[in-house]
């Protein structure tokens, strides 16, 4: 897994590439924590290039959500592939996260 991070106007985009499972969840956690520490108005996690995620990856995102809520950073997930969306639905977390179809939408959604 590689993780690309770039800053936009008032937003940081974290974009992992590859499967997110127990073997790499901590690496993603580190990137998310560093992004959150900058207290951006918006943290966008672009999952367009993540073909698979297990509950280790989901747990990392839940942790990020809890931290961002405390500091008024809006966390948005975007561009989920079917298998990744499936785990959010199975765990019924699709109602907890803000999930949109594209990064463009992630930038603007309120």
């Amino acid at each position, binding site marked *: 897994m590689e993780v690309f991070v770039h800053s936009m106007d008032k937003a940081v985009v974290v974009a992992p590439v590859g*499967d997110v*499972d*127990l*073997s790499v969840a901590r690496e993603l956690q580190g990137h998310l924590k560093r992004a959150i520490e900058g207290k951006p108005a918006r943290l966008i996690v672009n999952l367009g290039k993540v073909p*698979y995620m*297990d*509950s*280790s990856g*989901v*747990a*990392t995102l*839940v*942790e990020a959500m*809890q931290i961002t809520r405390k500091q008024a950073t809006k966390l948005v997930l975007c561009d989920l592939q*079917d*298998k990744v969306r*499936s*785990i959010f639905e*199975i*765990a*019924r*977390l699709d109602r*907890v996260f803000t999930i949109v179809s594209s990064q463009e939408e992630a930038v603007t959604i309120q």
Partner: protein
Amino acid sequence: MTPTKPQSPTMERLDRDFPLDAVPHTPPHVVVELFSQPRYLSGARDLVSAVAKRFGFDDAVCGQLALAVDEALCNIIRHGYDRRPDGRIWLSLWPVSEDEGQPHGIRIVIDDLAAQIEPDHIKGRDLDDIRPGGLGVFIIKQVMDKVRYEKRPGGGMRLLMSKLLPAQADEQGGKR
């Protein structure tokens, strides 16, 4: 150690009436032995998905079966072996009965030699309790039709799970 000792090659024996949460008397059709290391999760997922596809499951369910196995292996690695990298895990697969070579579903058994715990204590968490972790068992139970944990007589734990193909699940009133 192997989870099930090879017996006579009765691979074609129908086991339609055999409980779906028990180890069949026939040898597994596929057995993989792996160390308790996260880097082998992707290989295990690919294997389960490929076998399930051959058994007749559609792509979405193949992905879910791979997810259930991934979650089970993660729990063994994290909690059973406390992230020790030298624990042994056995993943065994069987078709559920067969009519002219067409399985009715898949049985999956995962054995380990980790510390034993009471099977009743292995529970998925309440989903309203939003927090990191604790989702694995819930996901396994959501995906599979039958799930049972037991202590292995020789030490360690065993997870038995199965899923029927949709037509068979409809007949037996199982989940799809």
